[in-house]
């Protein structure tokens, strides 16, 4: 009897969790109108906003120059690029200095902090920004030339304080986990973030994010102690009612690569999770005016841990239903979380198809199979990262485990090919 009550309660809780996550994940496709509203509206040709684009780079001499070149190809006429390098990183500094010598729009700021991290680097550069809007990119990003024009238009027409553009991992063919990683980004930037923007609570992304310079200065820049400074900034700004607009256009997204190995993915995810946990504990989200908003904030910031929990519990639950002698009704209830997981799987498969369509990539049967088969393993990975994050946070270890980039996505710079076997 007690077993029955216990597993029913757990199953129902998991069911509702998964159902809400699914509901939010599918936000953009709710109605054709919602989907249409997630796009950038077409720029009118006017330009009024000037940009300061921050490009923190650390040991990224291999990809930095390419990124700067591509940024300089922007059609927008009023922007500067501020490359932030460390004083202990001569190789990257040399690449940055060469670029600055070539083009007056590029400037170099040297970060002299003893212990370095991304928020500190960006805070160092913030006083040097001359533009109306500060934009953040990563050193390995491929930015679309027309992006700035679209963002300019979005700022002017919506009166936004923050514009978040799309970021998309592209190299889905590299490995089974990169496939899932790409799809995660797809659902997050294509769909879920728009819901957050609409609800007035949004954890911002790490790049392709644009903030009005005065708003950013007023907020005191980034939190240099936080491992998810991007998420934190979004939470702080939206919690005090700043208007955030999210726009996603497959043509205009910033293309990135997935971490090069499982271990670095695990580290990256651990860092994010730890960051989310820190943001949760900072309690800025408690200033949100609406109860629903606060609930959404609480839930979103705790998602990694709920995810970890459900990844472990769902198989256990099904096993109980099949092998233990419980009443048929209870056994049915234990299947509920598996049902939502299945629905999520199906939508992921459709999402992969849509992803391929949107980016002109050929998604083969084997990719769909990998997506489905890899699902449980990815869940294990997420669970592992979540457990690891809790552990590290508990032990007070909050140094940065930086992800290294090999430039896998750059091979496909001109027209996407997918001839790299996974």
């Amino acid at each position, binding site marked *: 009897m007690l077993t029955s009550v216990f597993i029913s309660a757990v199953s129902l809780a998991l069911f509702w969790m998964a159902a809400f996550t699914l509901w939010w994940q599918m936000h953009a496709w709710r109605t054709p109108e919602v989907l249409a*509203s997630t796009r950038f509206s077409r720029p009118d040709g006017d330009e009024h906003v000037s940009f300061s684009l921050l490009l923190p780079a650390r040991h990224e001499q291999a990809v930095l120059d390419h990124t700067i070149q591509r940024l300089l190809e922007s059609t927008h006429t009023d922007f500067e690029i501020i490359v932030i390098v460390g004083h202990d990183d001569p190789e990257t500094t040399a690449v940055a200095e060469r670029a600055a010598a070539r083009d007056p729009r590029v400037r170099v700021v040297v970060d002299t902090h003893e212990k370095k991290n991304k928020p500190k680097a960006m805070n160092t550069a913030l006083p040097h920004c001359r533009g109306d809007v500060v934009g953040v990119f990563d050193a390995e990003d491929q930015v679309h030339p027309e992006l700035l024009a679209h963002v300019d238009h979005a700022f002017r027409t919506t009166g936004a304080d923050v514009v978040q553009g799309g970021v998309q991992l592209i190299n889905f063919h590299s490995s089974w986990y990169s496939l899932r990683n790409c799809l995660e980004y797809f659902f997050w930037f294509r769909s879920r973030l728009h819901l957050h923007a609409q609800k007035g609570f949004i954890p911002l992304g790490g790049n392709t994010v644009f903030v009005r310079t005065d708003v950013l200065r007023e907020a005191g820049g980034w939190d240099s102690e936080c491992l998810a400074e991007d998420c934190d900034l979004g939470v702080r700004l939206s919690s005090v009612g700043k208007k955030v607009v999210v726009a996603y256009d497959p043509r205009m997204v910033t293309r990135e690569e997935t971490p090069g190995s499982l271990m670095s993915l695990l580290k990256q995810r651990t860092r994010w999770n730890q960051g989310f946990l820190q943001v949760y504990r900072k309690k800025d989200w408690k200033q949100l005016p609406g109860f629903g908003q606060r609930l959404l904030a609480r839930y979103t910031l705790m998602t990694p841990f709920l995810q970890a929990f459900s990844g472990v519990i769902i198989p256990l639950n099904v096993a109980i239903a099949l092998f233990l002698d419980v009443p048929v009704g209870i056994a049915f209830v234990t299947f509920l979380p598996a049902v939502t997981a299945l629905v999520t799987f199906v939508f992921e498969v*459709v999402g992969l198809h*849509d992803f391929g369509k949107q980016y002109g990539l050929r998604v083969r049967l084997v990719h769909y199979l990998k997506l489905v088969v890899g699902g449980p393993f990815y869940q294990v990975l997420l669970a592992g990262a979540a457990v690891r994050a809790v552990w590290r946070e508990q032990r007070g270890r909050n140094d940065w485990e930086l992800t290294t980039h090999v430039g896998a996505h750059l091979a496909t710079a001109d027209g996407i090919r997918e001839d790299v076997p996974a």
Partner: protein
Amino acid sequence: MTSTLPAATAAQVPAQSTPVPTPADGRTPAPQRLRSSRPDLLLCGLLLVAILVVQGWNIADYPTLSDDEGTYLAQAWAVQQGKGLAHYTYWYDHPPLGWIQLALLTWIPSALDPGSLTVGSMRAVMLLVSAVSAVLVYVLARRLSLPRWAAGLAMALFGLSPLSVVLQREIFLDNLAVMWTLLAFALAASPSRHLWHHFGAGLAAATAVLTKETMLVVLPALFLTMWRHSHRDTRKFALTGAITACALIGFSYPLFALLKGELLPGGGHVSLWDGIRYQMTRPGSGFILDAGSGSYGVLHSWLYYDRVLPLGGLAGALLLLLTWRWSVTARALAGPALAVAILAALALRPNGYLPAMYVIQALPFLALVLAGGTASVAHAVLRRWRSEAERRSVAVGRYALAAVLALAAGAYVVPRWYDGDHTALTADANAPYRAASSWLSTEVAHPEDTRVLVDDALWLDLVHAGYRPGLGVIWFYKADLDPAVTKTMPHGWRDLDYVVASPTVRRDARDLPGVRAAMEHSTPVAVFGTGEDRIEIRRIQPATAGGAR
């Protein structure tokens, strides 16, 4: 670091709102919010009252209690009593969701008065089902872009045709399944094209199928409707969502069998497999157009009540399919027309099994396509090839023609329907049943020790009268077919006290040796009614070999 920004009220920020271009389709766009449109509410409300009055008045006494009604209601009673899915072994004859819903619907009345749970009095709950279905027909018609009057026509056809009145009064699983199917269609045609509406359509469709498995054949028409009503950009998510929802709920039935260890046949237990095989291999009832076949008889039993809806609906479907190229109405009603086509094609199988309830699932679609066909004709008469410079006489001619057509149709339909519905409102077909029930309740000294074979329609009456459910009062065919029952009758008919020979029992006794023997060794002690419809209460005569028959 804490924020130093001044707190401001968060603006709910929809991203830049971009209207989606809607395909111009249908000349009378349904209002975005049907429930705030006063004329729609008024028309639908008036029709609903009329339907409830016509279907509700005299509901217990007409038509004759059917064996199947008794079956489902008795199983609903078993569910309420916590006896599982049936008081005899549940053998996967139908998915159980139908009578689980019946159990829910009849919960409150039977909790207030347990004796009221009999077929006649519980027909009242079917009014609720009819009401919901009728409103859904209206909503669906509007969502399929029919003009208001045509939506009202569809609702009236669906709810007031004498055929509908007779069949929708009865406690058939098909009526419940029709309600869920209509909900699925209405959600599929949701004007907001919301992902979760389509998902809900899938859930409703699966519920319909688990209520009555024959609804499976209508699913392609539902899919077509959803396809037509979804937007290109979101279609793949909407449709896969709906299919997934439908499949997941649908698979819960085999899962249920699996959890009970009854998925596949095996020694000493029933199985889903056997249940499906039984349904798929039921002896055919002949070709529907072959005079003398069972199917032909069924067809004529439908046409006896009403020709307008079945034949007119078929004609309407044909008209819509033929004018697909030119008529927006035809395209808008593609889903219902396809449903009619599928159901008609299945009824025309050379030797399929055609039960009398078969037409129930076609009724809403027949009504919709007939109304749609009428709207199409009205459009052709009043609007087609009309130009600004049309002469006044031509315009008057158009309206005159329309009026003549409407009057002719009215002159044909109204008297026939009046007769049919008049019978439904006044006839008392169940007096013999009531009398038999009352006789067995009052004239038998020790009901708790009496064993009696009855048809399913009377079973609950006798349970309430104090007979032992299952082995005291016995569904007559279980005496031959259920090993759990035969086991308790080692001496065959000698272990029984009475047989209640209703028309159903007399008909089926031919194929049931045990029941036949009981009939042969019994004599009538009371007879109610006359002719074919009479009900005889026959007492078993152990002494007289051969019986008095």
